[in-house]
């Protein structure tokens, strides 16, 4: 074994089965390249400004906001699993908890990183904390996401210090032990924050009175999208988690969690998705018949533009909403691993489509009667920056999988070690 491999081995838990160093590096290589490309693209945006993107005054939000909203929804698995395990005591989901934390952490930190590229003056972004406008949904989002990111880091640290080398530092062990007591509290706080900001991300567009396509009425200060976003996020979170674990199993060739966990995640996703689709249908009905006409806009103002015709509405509701919900809930289909994963993928696509419609379609549709319908294709810098975030997620998860006890099955000697 080479020097590098020896060092590498020393950081991996004893007795844990992992790919060879060479194979692992080979696996990382393309992702690192993508990450570097992403950093380069982001660097261009910092140096030259946002003219590197294809956003414009009319498409003031572009692919980045769409995908940010999407990955934050996907990352909802983190808080929701924590919430299920610690608050609702669904302990059978514990095996995927660490994965959920890592997925959440990468999704959130990635989203924040992209947001920092997306704003024109990142050096002044802290003004939101110093001069907050409490009426703005974006203030709510900023506060909640930053706080929740902190929570995720705190949740990640106890996992991190279980690394073979880090465990050797005695104070870290003490910390880990203490932190475990804290984790339920963190899960509670995290759940609270997350419910809020998933909601406020929905509110982000729902409050836009000037964009009748997105504008919704609601309860108190929150438009209905606030609640719909929470619902769709907690519906898609478990699905995405399921896909991540399935991907990890596929790549490592190991069985990491029991199939029952899949089924449970699927069932949760399915039920929530069903509720979501129903709520969304009612919301769409009320919006099209009450909210929107009041602002002077009718369905034709939204659905007469190719390609955003009513097929999008149908797709988001039936094949990407109802269908996966049924697949998840009906025992005959839910027993089937392939169908379960298909349903999870459909759910993710459904949420992606929903976020796309809320962000991109809202901006593409004209508001002024003499305005044209607009198109926007992201520039390579935008795509690459996001690719970088994707690579970052894969790399962090891969490293975590290799060096940390992500699953009971691959924990190695870390099993049954107690402080005594």
């Amino acid at each position, binding site marked *: 074994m080479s020097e590098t491999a020896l060092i590498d081995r020393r950081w991996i838990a004893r007795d844990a089965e992992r790919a060879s160093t060479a194979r692992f590096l080979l696996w990382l290589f393309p992702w690192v390249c993508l990450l570097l490309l992403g950093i380069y693209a982001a660097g261009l945006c910092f140096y030259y400004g946002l003219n590197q993107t294809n956003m414009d005054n009319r498409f003031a939000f572009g692919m980045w906001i769409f995908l940010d909203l999407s990955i934050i929804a996907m990352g909802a698995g983190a808080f929701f699993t924590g919430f299920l395990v610690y608050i609702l005591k669904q302990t059978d989901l514990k095996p995927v908890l660490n994965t959920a934390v890592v997925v959440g952490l990468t999704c959130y930190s990635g989203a924040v990183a992209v947001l920092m590229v997306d704003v024109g*003056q990142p*050096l*002044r972004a*802290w003004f939101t904390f110093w001069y907050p406008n409490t009426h703005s949904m974006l203030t709510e989002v900023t506060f909640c996401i930053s706080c929740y990111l902190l929570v995720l880091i705190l949740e990640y640290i106890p996992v991190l210090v279980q690394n073979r080398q880090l465990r050797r530092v005695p104070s870290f062990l003490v910390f880990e032990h203490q932190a475990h007591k804290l984790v339920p509290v963190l899960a509670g706080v995290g759940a609270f924050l997350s419910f809020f900001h998933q909601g406020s991300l929905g509110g982000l567009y729902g409050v836009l009175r000037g964009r009748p396509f997105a504008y919704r009425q609601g309860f108190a200060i929150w438009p209905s999208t606030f609640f719909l976003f929470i619902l769709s996020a907690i519906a898609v979170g478990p699905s995405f988690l399921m896909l991540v674990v399935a991907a990890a199993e596929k790549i490592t060739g190991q069985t990491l969690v029991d199939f029952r966990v899949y089924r449970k995640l699927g069932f949760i996703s399915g039920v929530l998705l069903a509720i979501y689709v129903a709520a969304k249908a009612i919301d769409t009905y009320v919006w099209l018949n009450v909210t929107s006409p009041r602002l002077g806009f009718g369905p034709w103002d939204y659905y007469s533009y190719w390609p955003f015709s009513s097929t999008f509405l149908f797709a988001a509701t039936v094949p990407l909403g109802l269908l996966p919900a049924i697949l998840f809930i009906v025992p005959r289909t839910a027993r089937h691993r392939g169908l379960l994963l298909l349903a999870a993928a459909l759910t993710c696509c459904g949420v992606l489509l929903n976020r796309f419609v809320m962000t991109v379609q809202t901006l593409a549709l004209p508001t002024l009667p003499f305005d044209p319908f607009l198109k926007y294709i992201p520039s390579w810098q935008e795509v690459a920056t996001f690719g970088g975030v994707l690579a970052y997620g894969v790399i962090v998860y891969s490293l975590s999988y290799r060096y940390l006890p992500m699953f009971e099955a691959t924990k190695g000697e870390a099993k049954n070690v107690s402080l005594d």
Partner: protein
Amino acid sequence: MKFSRRDLLIGTAGVTAGIVFTPVPWKLLGDVSIWSQNWSWIPQPAHGPVETTLSPCTLCAAGCGMRVRMAAGFPVGISGVANHPLTKGALCTLGYAAHQLNWHPARLLRVRHSGRASSWPEAQAAFAAACAEGPIAVMDGRPGRAASVALETFAAKHNGSYQTVPGPETQALAPYAAWSGVPASTLGYDLENARTIVSFGAPLLDGWGTPGRFTRLWSARAAGQSDPQLRLIQIEPVLSHTAARAWRWLAVREGTQGALAAALARVLVEEHLVKAQGPLPEMTLEQAAVQAGLPIAEIRDLAHAMVEHGPTVVITSDGDPAVAALNVLLGAVGTPGGIILKSKVIPRHGAASTAPAKFRATVIDASVPWDLIPPAQGEVFRFATWDGGDSKADWLLPSPGFLEELTDIPTAPTSATETYAIATDLLAQPQETQTAAQFLRKIDASLPDVDKSIHARCEQIFQARLGTIYAGQSKPVAQFESAAKLEEQLRKGGVWLSEPPRNATLHCALKIWPAAAATAPAAPTDWTSTWAPPVLPPLAAKLYQESTVREAPARRLA
């Protein structure tokens, strides 16, 4: 005591904890944000008080009244002068960015000879040599100025020829001048008394003539009225901005306005819509209608509309005699609301002299449009402030820029009243520049200088005791104590207006219907055609690039 790695870590922790209690992180966070608000590569305006002065605009012959805001010695804003008798507070679209022109990237600040850098002494020597060898032509784009006196005197003294290059609006008056035997410069449009204006492609609402004059008139008497006091009929192949806002728009086939005029003449005379019996075009109504691509009914309709609500005047943008002849039929030459003789003309130095066949050299004043192709023979000395690109001149000589030169502004071509204004050099003339008059005075020091000619002109106005000076309010010339006082008022941005126009009938000797202009003259093809400098202010990009309200111009931009 040994310093261990552990100590280093703990020490670092101490520093980290300590630094939080110092201004370092907090001040840096704030200062970096402030840095982002004051990036050094982003220019910021100068500090200091702003002064306002009045001056006529010198960019084209219209001479609109400007209010110039100056700060730290530079103009920082231009607006119209409310209640100005000529412009009524308006300027042309691009005039609002004229103060930026002096820094246009195409600004000429070096003498160029055959495309290479040269110098004033070399140009001077070359010109002196040319003068010694043969006759010289001097071309003036805006005759009647104080500088024109010097140009003309030089030509006269050096066996040369003084030639004027009439602008499109003077050219449009040329047929009437030819038919009635008066100089085109003494004719003007009595827009204020017209009730129907038929425009053959003239961009009346888009910078034609003195911009504010017609736009204000149209705004008060036509805009938004279903039966307007002032009917504007626009005849143009495309829906231009003027056509879009006209009372009626007639889409004539490209290049057939002569035919349409002939058809209209036929209807006007044959249906006795006008008193005149002729001349009549050879073309029949049917032939003309086929050429113009319009149904006869529509032409007849138009002819009726033309006379329904008189006085009517026809305005062309290019001086096509076939169209101009319509005014003769309509009786619109020399009558109120038509084409009239300007108010009592205070005599000025004469008009263009005839040209000998051959010249050793040609001097082209900066007032001559850039796209004028100079006569082929001889060495061309081209004065210009901006490089309009693709020059045929041997010598490119940098002239003073906007507001960098003392000059006077004689009557605008379309004006019905004679006027006079003086633009002082609000900005110092750059040392790299010379006007044509300054250049010629170096050869012949006896040429009258601009300052003196302006005095003389003011003296002339004072002696004539005609008209009024407007400078915030009107004051009759007769009430001025001295010519110096009058001149002072004019130098502060005042404008002299002569008496109201005369109602002198003009007899037009038009026996046969004129042929339409042989080659379709260059009608305004883009909206920049009314803009005199060869370059546009960079802010023009707001219109053609950052919005869709205008087509991109053919003119050089930035």
